[in-house]
């Protein structure tokens, strides 16, 4: 009887492990506050072109001083804090927006030039531009005929 009780929980754990594996070397961040939900906050998009890697995150309500962006080696870290409303006499009828501290780690698939990483925050959207390290850029190899 005890074995049958455990089965549904086991299946869930396996599914979760499978999903974590799907992301491969791209890690997920830890949430300090459950209010941000079981997924990492913020959600991240990552794309590339020949010379750059780009990361974008939606962080509405944050100012630049609420955020820290680090690139060390090929690991990108986005840390921040979203303050809640201060004041007494606040009754929440609905609370969907998370507050508190967050950290996301991302292992980048290529090496980037960490001295030339730029981060721009506009209207709650953080865009990080990372020039690829020389060795990581694709090179066109000319074929010479003999």
């Amino acid at each position, binding site marked *: 009887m005890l074995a049958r009780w455990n089965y549904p929980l086991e299946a869930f754990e396996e599914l979760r492990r499978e999903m974590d594996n799907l992301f491969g070397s791209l890690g997920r961040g830890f949430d300090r506050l459950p209010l941000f939900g079981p997924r990492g906050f913020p959600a991240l998009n990552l794309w590339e072109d020949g010379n750059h890697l780009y990361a974008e995150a939606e962080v509405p309500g944050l100012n630049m001083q609420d955020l820290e962006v680090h690139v060390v080696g090929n690991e990108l870290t986005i840390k921040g804090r979203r303050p809640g409303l201060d004041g007494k006499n606040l009754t929440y009828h609905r609370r969907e927006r998370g507050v508190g501290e967050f950290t996301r780690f991302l292992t980048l698939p290529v090496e980037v030039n960490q001295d030339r990483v730029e981060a721009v925050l506009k209207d*709650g959207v953080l865009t990080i531009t990372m020039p690829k390290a020389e060795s990581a850029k694709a090179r066109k190899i000319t074929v010479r005929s003999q």
Partner: protein
Amino acid sequence: MATETAIEKREGQVVQPERTRGGPTYRPNVDIIEKDDELLLLADLPGARADSIDIDYERGELSIYARIEPRQSPKAIYLLREYGVGDFHRTFRVGEAIDVNRIEAEVKNGVLTLHLPKVEAARPKKIKVSGS
């Protein structure tokens, strides 16, 4: 089943307000907070500015629509894609306790703050007790 709106109705044909923009629409997260003299509605609308947000009030319904321009080329090669970029839309029913003529809205850092002042009668009042 098409829904009729008060906007237009031709014979045999029901016209809905058409969205002329393609792309996905997302439901923004909101906080609704009650204070003594107003209701506060905060909506996460990353990428939205004052001129790209439409707020309409009609017959007890408050509608928020934010137009968001795409930020990546449609041919972008994604390595990770945890969210999509698109317009935001959400509607709310507003009760009679709100003075709709005094609703105010402001947006900062992609967060919309809507002030919905309560009508006089709905505000908590201190009642003086007279006694002997």
